[in-house]
């Protein structure tokens, strides 16, 4: 129970391919596996393909023939229509603003708390940890009415900025959980060494803990970004005017009292998920490679 975690469980291990020799077997086995996985993947993605097909067929064709028919024509118009109907010029901006302000802030304060819990000798540490992790189990809907009343009284409803507080709060338990468990695996020697060099907690946090924890931070960042981008309930209840709506609420514009503009919706959804998929594609290298990146250089 003391000081150092064995080096094997730290994230400090070099990437390694657990390959076995026998080159021929490997190639054939790889091919078979690829085909099998490929088939699974095709099935997996097929509902999504339906979404894409719906997005590029005319609405009249969709209403006239049904969702699972083969389109009689293709069109890109849904995308430009969707841009207007979904009020994306506004909602995109709002969601992006929220993302830029909320996600880094949430990760930062969670990392600070996680650092205090993992590496500092804090009074009531376990009590704090316990109460924060318990937050994992609290459903959003139990808090929604009180949060609404609170925000209303504070004059913070109908504002994108006003969403930041509740969003932060509901993100904290998970982020702290992941980050503190990652921080705990950082070797104490590195931190002790820095301290001997005269570094304070704040500097240690910024120059050692955070850089060494890039993979955990990126993981938390992505998850939090997806959750923030898609959050619906708080946004629905707290935002009123069209000018302040976020993407998921804007997507409601495609439904009507008596009919839905489903092709527009499909196009709208594709427009809405592009940034997230893009971010994921760019960052996935980090998640995967990052976990194996070196803390050893410290």
């Amino acid at each position, binding site marked *: 129970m003391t000081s150092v975690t064995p080096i094997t469980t730290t994230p400090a291990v070099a990437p390694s391919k657990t390959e076995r020799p026998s080159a021929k077997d490997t190639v054939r086995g790889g091919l078979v596996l690829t085909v099998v996985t490929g088939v699974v993947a095709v099935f997996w993605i097929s509902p999504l393909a339906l979404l894409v097909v719906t997005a590029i067929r005319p609405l009249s064709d969709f209403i006239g023939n049904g969702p699972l028919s083969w389109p009689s024509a293709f069109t890109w118009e849904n995308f430009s229509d969707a841009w207007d109907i979904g009020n994306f010029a506004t909602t995109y901006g709002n969601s992006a603003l929220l993302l830029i302000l909320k996600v880094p802030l949430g990760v930062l*304060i969670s990392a600070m708390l996680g650092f205090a819990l993992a590496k500092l000798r804090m009074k009531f540490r376990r009590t704090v*940890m316990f109460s924060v992790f318990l937050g994992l189990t609290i459903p959003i809907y139990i808090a929604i009415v009180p949060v609404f009343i609170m925000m209303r009284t504070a004059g913070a409803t109908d504002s994108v900025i006003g969403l930041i*507080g509740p969003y932060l709060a509901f993100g904290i338990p998970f982020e702290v959980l992941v980050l503190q468990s990652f921080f705990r695996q950082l070797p104490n020697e590195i931190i002790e060494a820095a301290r001997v060099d005269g570094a304070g907690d704040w500097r240690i946090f910024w120059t050692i803990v955070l850089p060494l924890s890039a993979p955990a931070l990126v993981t938390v960042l992505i998850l939090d970004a997806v959750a923030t981008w898609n959050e619906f309930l708080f946004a629905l209840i707290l935002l009123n005017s069209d000018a302040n709506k976020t993407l998921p609420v804007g997507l409601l514009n495609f439904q009507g009292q008596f009919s839905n503009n489903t092709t527009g919706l499909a196009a709208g959804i594709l427009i809405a998920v592009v940034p997230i998929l893009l971010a994921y594609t760019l960052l996935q290298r980090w998640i995967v490679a990052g*976990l194996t990146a070196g803390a050893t250089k410290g």
Partner: protein
Amino acid sequence: MTSLSPRRRGGRWRPWLFALPALTVYVVFLVYPAVSSLWFSFTDWDGLSPAYNVVGLDNYARMLDDPVVLTAGKNNLIWSLVTIVFPVTIGLALALLLNGKVRAKPVLRLIFYAPGVLPLVSIASIWGWLYNPQYGAINSFLSLIGLGDLAQPWLGQDSTALWAVMVPAVWLRTGFPMLLYVAALQSIPAELYEAARVDGASRWRQFWHVTMPSLRSAHYIVLALSLIDSFKVFDMIYAMTYGGPGTATQVMGTWMYANVFQYYQAGYGTAIAVVITLIAIAVGIPYVRSQTRERAA
């Protein structure tokens, strides 16, 4: 344990400087609202009028006579079990596949992860079309492979509706465990496997004695995530079946929403929310304790 030796300068209050921002937000926007909900659950507030009466435990007593609460509770239980077990196992299986000699890994990873980023409205519509008894792809596929007898009105009958909603839930929640497991698998040092092979361990034994233990921290994160999502299930059901047919797929979350926002019974609805939260906390406690315990690495 892992904490550093006693502080040289500054007092014990200093760590609180790091803790305070997050804790403040957490208390103000989560703890406090949750606790004040507790208050509403002792009232007959309709959620609309300015006035209400305190009715003590009446709302809780009422739940005992509400058949929907029973259905919802049962559904929550089934839901949690299934949507924890399946995404995690399938995610792990996929990760093992993708950690092998498969080509085009980034594309495959993207494919398996993609459903997880879709907004729920789209998932509800797409799967609704697929499940359509007459024109849907699922029944058509069943007849195609000669299993036409198995074709069902999946979302249209009490016996299958909940299970039918769980399929897309598993579908969209498998991606993240997979991603984490892929990452974790890559960080297992090859030497461990080599050592095991030298000892003559079979692949099966290697999996249980090398792979699984090394994935421990990944397991923790995955389980945490599943736990959060499973108990609080709300929007998936709301979007796909609206609790129906009848009340067959109601869960505590949707039933609470109906009472607070649609039936003008905010007091009663809040009591339901309180109960589900208490259960979630009770179930979550062992997990949370395991996380706060000092890890004997």
